[in-house]
Every structure is written in C-alpha cells, then in structure tokens.
C-alpha cells in the first residue's frame, strides 16, 4: 500500500537539515510518497525507521506462490473488497482433494481426472489449479505424496493435521514446493519450523479470526513468512463473515497478521451443495476453493463464476472483429452484423444458434461498446460497417444481397443500400432474444 507523505514524515528526523537537497523534511517526504525520491536519500534516517517504512509500504495482502518450475499457482495481493472498486487481481484457484480412503489405483485415477479437467469457454482455458493430497489415514504418506507429485500436472497441497506425518511426506516431495495444510493452535510452531526449513508456504486455521491472527504472528516469528489463512465450512455463513472480516482488516486497515490470501475447504457437502456454496466462496473471498468432487457439471458452473467475477470491469470484454459462422451456413444463409462487445456478440450468437438457422455474423470493431453506446460514441458508422463487410468478403459466400442490421440502428438502412452492394437491408429486432422468432419469420 502506498504510504502518504504524512506517514513518511513522521519517521524522518524532522530537522530540516537540507542534506537531501530539499528545503524541508516535509518536502522530502512528499517526494518519497510520489516515488520521485528514495528513502535512502536521507542520510540521517534510522535503520529502524527504514525497516518500518519498507514494511509498511509492502502490499497489504501478501502474494503467495505454491509449486515450482512450470507448475505454479499464485494468489494474494488483492486490493479491493468489491470488483467495481478496481478489479480482483488473481482468479480463485480450485483444488480437488484426493481422499485418504482411495487406494493407489483410485488416487491415480483421480489425478488423471484432475489433469483432464480442462475446458475451453469463450476462448479461455479453464482448469483445476491444484491437487490436494489427504495424508491422514494413508498407510504410507511419503509414497502417496510422491505418487501424486509424479503424476499431477498442477501444484500440490499436502493435507495433514500431524507435523510428523507432514514431515515424512514433505521430505519426499520438497522439490515441488507444495502448500502444507494445515497448522492449528497446538501445532503451529512445529508446522512453522517445517515450512521455514523446506521453504514452502503454510496454511493455518484458528478457532476464530482473532486466534488465527495470533497464530500467523507465531508462525512468522518461527521463520515461516509465506502463510495462507485456512477456513472450513462447518458453518458456511460464519466462514463468509470471517473471510470478509479478514480481508477488510488486511486491505482497509493494513492489519499485517491477516495480510495473507485464503483457502476454503468444503466439508461434508453433497456434490450439488458443494457446487452451489463453493461458487459463493469463490466469489467472496476464497483464494483457493478446496473441493471433493470434480465432475464437469460440478466444476463448470464454479469455473464460470470465477471467470465472470474475476473479469476486469474496467476493460470492455471484446471478441475478435471477424466473420463468424454459426452452424454450417451456405450460400443462401442470412447475413447480419453486430458489435465486438462480447456480451452483445455472445447474446446474438447464442440466439442465432437457438434459432437453428445457420447464419453469418459479421462482427464490427466498436472498441468493445454495445450497439447504442457505439452509435452514441461514434464507434460505428455506415462507412465502417460497409468496409468491414467488404473486408470479410461475405459477398463471396452468399448468393443473395440481403443484410440484417441491428434493430437499434434502423437509420443505417437507406445509406447502406445506397453505398454498398447490399441492396436489401432488413431491420432486425432490438434485442437478441427476439432473433429466433424474427429469423423464422423473415428467412423462409
């Protein structure tokens, strides 16, 4: 978090000695706050003040990395409570548990399932981010950890309540830098020593947010710097409140003891309720959502929630401005145009699909604005539409010269007919959902 000039000024000698080249300490503080001067340019600043200030200028929520090499997952360093305040920085990761009850074959099969849980949705790749290996109750924890580490395409979380079990397993797979999960009030010091020794991140749970804050300080004092706040869902409403409290304390109050990302472990849910409640945690405020099941119908709605919520609201979502073929259109199929605002495009494309009439959709680059906004902002014009359609060579694909235009742009009709080879312009509906009925009527 950026420091204010006032906060910096308080740590300066306040002697106005001018040795930094500026007339007063306040002037120097203002330059430092504006990042035009470095703190070290004050020759008289105490080492203590320098440490304090550099610590205070660290981000309020730490960035944590799990994994090594090309299998890593990063989370943390979030800066806001609501996505409209700026954006959420790092999409919530999904971790799927490999239960202790699974034998080696079953464990192998589940890792395979996790590796294969990769989906492409609106041009983006969605996948499970982490493999969580339950160790308590496994006959040979080291062998289990090694088995999964060898097979998994994604980084690992090792799960055990016992520092002894964890040490055995961690020794076997130290090089993949797993997250170790999880310490509580009685084991925090042993776990912290283990994490510090192996250089891996550590998850800690507390019986309350207050206790959790105490435990992270203890772990930090033992040398474990990379911490994760762990919550489960015995009382999911409480968990959502705790997550909110921890995040507000970190982000708004710069409260260091809770300045770490979070993991939420779903417990004892049916696949359906795990999906519904899990998605709510992914939206607020789990950094990692740990689940038991990983059927596509469970993962996809949660992944799509993450995809939506973690979209940057400041950047309009766009699709490439090109010709899209819906179904397998032929030389007598309808031709229509729309904007490259992805919401507009996907609404139109979805409804055309629903109509079961194959069609060409020409997408015009409107810099991510919808039809009306594009028109108001001069991002769409007849000239642009005609040029786009010509460059996409649609005339070579169809025999007819009928063009369907958005219902919100009826005034384009005459000019398109006058200035292009598209001599029969048909005014389409104002909203996408009317497209199936419209096409059924006009395109017989």
């Amino acid at each position: 978090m950026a420091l204010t000039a006032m906060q910096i000024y308080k740590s300066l000698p306040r002697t106005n000695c001018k040795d930094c080249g500026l007339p007063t300490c306040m002037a120097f503080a203002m330059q430092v706050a504006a990042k035009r001067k470095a703190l070290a340019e004050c020759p008289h600043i105490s080492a203590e003040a320098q440490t304090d200030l550099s610590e205070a200028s660290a981000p309020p929520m730490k960035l944590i990395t799990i994994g090594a090499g090309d299998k890593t997952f990063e989370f943390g360093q979030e800066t806001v409570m609501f996505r409209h305040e700026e954006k959420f920085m790092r999409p919530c990761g999904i971790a799927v548990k490999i239960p202790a009850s699974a034998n080696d074959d079953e464990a192998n099969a589940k890792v395979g399932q996790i590796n294969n849980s990769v989906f492409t949705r609106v041009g983006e790749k969605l996948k499970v981010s982490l493999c969580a290996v339950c160790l308590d109750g496994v006959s040979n924890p080291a062998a289990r950890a090694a088995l999964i580490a060898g097979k998994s395409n994604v980084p690992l979380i090792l799960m055990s309540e016992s520092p002894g079990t964890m040490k055995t397993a961690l020794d076997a797979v130290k090089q993949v830098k797993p997250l170790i999960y999880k310490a509580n009030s009685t084991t925090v010091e042993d776990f912290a020593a283990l994490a510090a020794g192996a250089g891996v991140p550590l998850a800690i749970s507390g019986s309350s947010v207050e206790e959790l804050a105490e435990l992270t300080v203890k772990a930090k004092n033992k040398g474990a710097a990379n911490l994760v706040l762990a919550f489960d869902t015995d009382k999911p409403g409480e968990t959502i409140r705790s997550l909110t409290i921890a995040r507000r304390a970190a982000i708004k109050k710069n409260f260091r003891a809770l300045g770490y990302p979070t993991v939420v472990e779903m417990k004892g849910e049916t696949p359906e309720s795990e999906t519904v409640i899990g998605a709510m945690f992914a939206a607020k405020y789990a950094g990692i959502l740990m689940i038991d099941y990983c059927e596509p119908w469970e993962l996809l709605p949660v992944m799509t929630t993450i995809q939506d919520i973690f979209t940057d609201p400041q950047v309009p979502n766009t699709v490439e401005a090109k010709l899209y073929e819906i179904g397998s259109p032929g030389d007598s199929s309808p031709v229509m145009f729309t904007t490259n605002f992805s919401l507009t495009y996907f609404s139109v494309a979805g409804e055309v699909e629903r109509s079961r009439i194959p069609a060409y959709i020409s997408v015009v680059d409107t810099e991510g604005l919808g039809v009306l906004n594009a028109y108001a902002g001069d991002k769409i014009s007849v000239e642009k539409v005609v040029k786009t359609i010509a460059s996409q060579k649609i005339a070579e694909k169809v025999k007819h010269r009928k063009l369907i235009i958005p219902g919100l742009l009826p005034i384009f009709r005459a000019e398109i007919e006058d200035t292009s080879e598209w001599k029969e312009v048909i005014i389409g509906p104002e909203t996408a959902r009317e497209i199936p009925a419209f096409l059924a009527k006009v395109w017989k």
Partner: protein
Amino acid sequence: MALPDIKEKWTYKINEVTIGAIEQEGGTRGKTITVGGQTTLPLLSFEGNIPNKPVVAGYIANAVPDWPDTILKGIGDEVKSPVEWAQKSVQEFKVDLLSIKLIGADPHGKNATAEECAKTVSDVLKAVDVPLIIWGCGDDEKDSLVLQACAEAAKGENCLIGSAKESNYRTIVALCMANKHKIISEAPVDINIGKQVNILLRDIGYNLNDVIMFQTTAALGYGFDYVYTISERARIAGLKGDALMALPQICDVGGEVFRVKEAVADEDALPGWGALEKRGPMWEAVCAGNYLQAGADIVIMAHPVAIKNIRQAIDKLF
C-alpha cells in the same frame, strides 16, 4: 489478538416490501412474503440486521417455455398446465411464492387474449395460496391489456406486477394503484436507468416502499458479472442513504439460464461437459446463489433440483 474495527457504518435501511394479502387484508392468500429491511450487506450480520431471508419464487408460465426436454422433464408434465405447475411448485418444490410469466400472450406466439390470461391468473390464485408475481409477455402494447386484465382479476391480492419501464410506467402504476398491487421497476443492465425509472415512479406519486427493483438478469457466463456488480453497487448505494436505490431486488434466474448453451445443450453438442440433466440445474442454482450474495432478495427459479439446493444454501448461510 484484538482485531481492528472493520465494521462499516451503514446509515440506511433497505425498504421492507410485503407481497400477498391474507383475508383480513382483502386477499385470499394463506400467507404473505416480506423481503428487504436489511441494514447491512448480504450475510454480514455482524454490522446490521437481516430481518428477512431471501426467498425463492417458482417460475410458472401459461405456455410451455422453449427449454430443452431434459429440463422440462425435470419439472414434469405439469408444465403444460399453469395451475398444475403452480400446485406442484408449491407442494413438491416448496417455493415461497410463485412468479407467472404470461409468455402465452406473445403476439408472435400463442397470442392468448388478455381475458384468457386473466382467467389463468384467477385459476392459479384459486389453486394455491402463496403470493403471486405476475409478468406480461414482454410486448409493451399487448402487456398493457394483459396486465390490466390480470391486475383486475387479482384485485386485492397484493401481487407484484412486472414490469414498469421508462416506456410503460404510467400504465403499470395506474393498474397497480387501482387494484392494490405492487410494482417491479425494470432497467436493462444499467444502474442509471434503474435509478431513473424509480425517479419516474416516485414523481408520479407512486410509493417506492411498494417497489422491487429488477436490473434484468444475466445468465452465468453471459454478462453475469455486469448484473452482479450493478446489484452490489445498488445495494451499497441504498445502505449509504440513496433512497432511490434502497429497494429490494429480484432476479429472474430460471427465465434466463435456460437460454444459454451451457444450460441447454446436451453432451453431444458439448463433449466432455457432463450430462445436461445435471449441468442445467447446477447452472441455474449457482447463478442464483451468486446473485443472492450480491443483493438479490427474490430469485425466480424453475428446476426442482436447483430450487432444492438454493433453499438449502439459504438455510445454511443466511
């Protein structure tokens, strides 16, 4: 360790709105439903009161919606009869109230007359005793006739009528005032228009305490993030003292999700995405759960599996 004080000081209360009227109030409902009244964000009971949990309204219609057979089968054969669909939703799906969409009135579809729609509404009101939300078919011209007839048929039942937009709000206000109903104010994914519609309602003398906001609803994956954020911003504005935004919110999840391919296409069309029978209802339930977290007070839902899971989530979380 003592934590810093992170409580927000919200200064305003979301309006409390009751739907339905029992006999003493001039209606025939067995119970009423009250939403709103919060002085804090969803779930954050440590800094305010949440007197009413969110509720689930069962989606019914006077024509079979154009949803895939797999989804319709999940609901049952009753979709063919609004009365039977209503009864099943209340008795088996355990919805808190009902939301009827008169899509059968669509001039491009079945084109049911206003009188036929009013008859359907009366029949539904006779068949079940939960409060009712009534929507037109989306064609302003037709809806002015349809909603007029339905509002009269349901006179005194304190229904929620959808929806008042910039284009038709005068008609809707007149028919609601004459027949003692409440209003849904609608704006298409635009918080400023949402506020504008509420200003129009207020300025012609309609009491905003009798209004529920509808920012339209986007299906998960299709502009969901826009509506989620509008809902969240509206709720925050309301709690901070903007009386025009301090209204309960409604989301038509069932009416929206079964149009997008993730919730309607079977595995042939989406290889590796899992059976539609499971995926469809989850798409609906997850979408609804997320809206509840943003600020929805009423979610309209259709599939029994989705309804069951949202009810459980509400019980566990709220």
